[in-house]
């Protein structure tokens, strides 16, 4: 029987009854699955919105059957109005950045696996954990309400720049109540995320099992931990910003609205506010937010890659330190979203240097991933394919960032499709590939069944090719000067050549989107009919594979684990094969090589 050095009280009683087990659960595993489910709904909704947007761009007068049911005003007769395009654009961005990319790689997988990977029975604060999910869920409901109010969702983009977002209904459709619902939803989301981040940090610092030193934590745990530290600071700044925005909209204050604005022929009764203040507050949150979106996927991919390579990375420590530097630097670069915003041009230069510098740890990580593949024994399965695909997507997206980091180049590329291509590749694709990889990898542990690998490989192939077909052309459009957030292309230079490219993108988007239903089918079917999974189907080393699939309510039963090794003992001669598990007392013998 294992013993612990520090007495551990059971964090909460075993759950009884349906509501306690599956709805208002204190169990981090259930909460993780709830976050995943929410992200799944949000991603399909966001994807459907993007289809509508892409269809409108290439066939603006097409009647979309059923669209007028969603909004009589926004799409009379099924034909989308320019303002409704902007509403869909705003909701697409908001759903994807907040409810998918912050929820899935971080809140969902982090909640499920962080406690297990460090040998804990649950998170430090299970009640706060439950609260954080339900607050996030409420935020989602508040946001979705914008679709059903008569005026519709806001049209100011997920970035909600003032004064457009602050002056109220004069700014346009959806800007009376839709924008306020946005503000309320995001404020709630901040609170949910802060509670979650707090939980992750306290758990990582204080609930590690005996022998689990910080440097023995898996890379995925480190990624969730670093992400939580970033999130704690970032969301703490977005919340006040949203509060001030709502006050400007409804209480007549002038935090962001200057004097003398004439909107819709009405002189606005505000004065002295600063639109740039909103941008600074928003991007001080906004830039770390995109690292919150990518870091967990970097950790998940590293974790899966090592398992599928059957050998450790060239240096896990360097990868961890690189993630830390990225986290640290992420707070110094927010101004690169504002190079041509009218802020002091000296500041623009100042912000560009740390922005360029972030390339260094990102390059280090990429080189380590690539270098580790050399001489490996790569096992190909759905999870490892997405992990390898992540590397490709991260390189592609990262490289375009290098252009945008330079203010003088940004003069030309800002506000064009080049930017949209960049952030979709890193966030919309690379980060999502981390989620896919994690799903295929951890599904057996979470459900006790295997996902269908053939369907997974098909899903990967179509998604990998499709994502490049969609987003690589965005860069070419940007180089030509195609501006973003346009509901139609009426500029002189948008000739048939460019419109064919747009058609190609739209068709690729529809096909790639359809392929996601293969994934959804696989997920649901396997949950009920998948082949039974053993405790350790991937011959992996970390603590989650030492417990049953699916795990009991208290993870490790009555045995508190003791950790003897670093997390990646692969390529060694162990009792069970070419690996030694973290909680196995056997000494690892390095295979002759």
């Amino acid at each position, binding site marked *: 029987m294992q013993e612990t050095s520090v007495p551990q009280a059971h964090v909460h009683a075993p759950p009884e009854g349906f509501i306690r087990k599956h709805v208002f659960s204190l169990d981090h595993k259930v909460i993780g699955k709830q976050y995943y489910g929410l992200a799944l709904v949000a991603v399909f909704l966001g994807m459907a919105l993007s289809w509508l947007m892409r269809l409108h761009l290439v066939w603006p007068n097409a009647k979309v059957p059923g669209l007028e049911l969603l909004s009589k005003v926004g799409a009379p007769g099924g034909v989308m109005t*320019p303002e409704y395009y*902007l509403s869909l654009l705003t909701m697409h961005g908001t759903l994807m950045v907040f409810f998918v990319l912050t929820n899935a790689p971080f809140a969902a997988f982090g909640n499920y696996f962080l406690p297990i990977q460090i040998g804990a029975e649950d998170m430090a604060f299970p009640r706060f954990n439950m609260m954080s999910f339900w607050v996030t869920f409420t935020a989602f409901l508040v946001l979705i309400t914008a679709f059903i109010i008569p005026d519709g969702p806001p049209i100011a983009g997920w970035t909600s*720049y003032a*004064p*457009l977002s602050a*002056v109220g209904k004069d*700014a*346009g459709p959806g800007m009376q109540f839709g924008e306020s619902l946005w503000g309320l939803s995001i404020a709630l989301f901040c609170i949910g995320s802060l509670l979650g981040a707090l939980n992750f940090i306290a758990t990582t610092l204080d609930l590690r099992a005996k022998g689990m030193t910080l440097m023995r934590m898996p890379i995925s745990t480190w990624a969730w931990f670093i992400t939580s530290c970033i999130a704690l600071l970032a969301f703490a700044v977005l919340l006040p910003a949203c509060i001030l925005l709502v006050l400007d909209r409804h209480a007549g204050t002038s935090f962001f609205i*200057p004097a*003398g*604005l*004439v*909107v819709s*022929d009405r*002189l606005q009764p505000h004065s002295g506010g600063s*639109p*740039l203040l909103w941008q600074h507050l928003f991007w001080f949150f906004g830039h770390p937010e995109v690292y919150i979106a990518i870091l967990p996927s970097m950790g998940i991919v590293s974790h899966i890659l090592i398992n599928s390579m059957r050998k450790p990375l*060239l*240096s896990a420590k*360097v990868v961890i330190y690189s993630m830390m530097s990225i986290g640290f630097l992420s707070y110094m670069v927010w101004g690169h979203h504002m190079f041509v915003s*009218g802020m002091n041009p000296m500041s623009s*230069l100042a912000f*560009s240097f740390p922005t*360029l*510098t972030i*390339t260094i740890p990102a*390059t*280090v990580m990429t*080189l380590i991933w*690539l*270098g580790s*593949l050399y*001489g*490996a024994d*790569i096992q190909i399965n759905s999870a490892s394919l997405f992990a*390898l695909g992540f*590397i*490709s997507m991260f*390189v*592609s997206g990262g490289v375009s960032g290098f*252009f945008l980091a*330079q203010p*003088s*180049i940004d*003069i*030309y590329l800002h*506000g064009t499709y080049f930017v949209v291509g960049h952030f979709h590749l890193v966030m919309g694709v690379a980060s999502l590939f981390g989620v896919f990889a994690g799903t295929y990898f951890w599904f057996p542990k979470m459900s006790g069944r295997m996902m269908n690998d053939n369907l997974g*490989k098909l899903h990967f*192939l179509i998604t990998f*090719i499709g994502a490049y077909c969609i987003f*690589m052309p965005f860069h*070419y*459009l940007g180089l*030509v000067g195609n*501006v973003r*957030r346009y509901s139609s*292309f*009426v*500029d002189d*230079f948008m000739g048939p050549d460019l419109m064919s490219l747009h058609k190609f993108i739209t068709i690729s988007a529809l096909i790639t989107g359809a392929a996601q239903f293969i994934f959804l089918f696989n997920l649901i079917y396997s949950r009920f009919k998948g082949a039974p999974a053993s405790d350790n189907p991937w011959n992996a080393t970390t603590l989650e594979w030492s417990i049953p699939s699916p795990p009991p309510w208290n993870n490790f039963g009555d045995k508190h684990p003791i950790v003897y090794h670093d997390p990646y003992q692969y390529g060694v001669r162990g009792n069970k094969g070419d690996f030694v598990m973290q909680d196995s007392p056997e000494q690892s013998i390095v295979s002759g090589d």
Partner: protein
Amino acid sequence: MGKIFAVVLVIIALASAYPIISNKYAMPEDISTHGHLIDEQLHETMWEAGLSFLGAQLVLAYFVWVFTNRKAGSPLKTFPGGAKVMVIAAILFVGTEILALGVMGQKAWGSVYFTAPKPDALQVQAQAGQFAYYFRYPGADGKFGAIHPDKIDEGNQNYFGLDPANEVEARDDVVSGELVVPANREVQLLMHAKDVGHSFYVRELRIQQDFVPGLDLAIHFTATKVGKYEIICTQLCGLGHYNMKAYLNVMSPEDYDKWMKTQEAAQ
């Protein structure tokens, strides 16, 4: 499947690079005096980004091809030099690029933002509002009349809210829906936002600058080629954002003088 991935990746990498290499989607010609610095910087970055992109994708494809489905018993190998080599390579390679581009970039950025406009630069004011641009020239007295937001009356074409009845300076201001400038003369553009954020973007001029409500911003440029060039809005400003544009009409100095005389006579 690993081999399939490798082949697909190589095809994608080469297919992605092809439009760039063949210059199929080229930037429009540069008609400004400072633009060549930006273009040079972009080309330098494209080389470096392109080589990094191709290098990384091809290496990834190669390693996946070679190291999947290996014969049973093949030994595991470690990349020579290990992590240290990678860290040093990253710092050297990226560090050098950052320095080179940073130095280049300062010149390009500075030519737009850190040089003062010439004293005889042509003064024009641009006003951006939902969803049109209007431009105004100071007229013979060289002074702009004050803007009174409460006097704006689009129906009577008082776009700027001028008060010519009570203000002398406002009487000779020339208002135009086009930005007409003479070639090869520096223009100082004073930027005023009427309602929400907008932006001034002329691709050929290699200029992009946001209008910020409440802030008086100015940029300067010199156009070198006669012609009409689109001015488009790149800052989301509402439902008409996609359609908000005007024209930069670069005329020869003689044509410009003729045009200005006609405008002034019409005031």
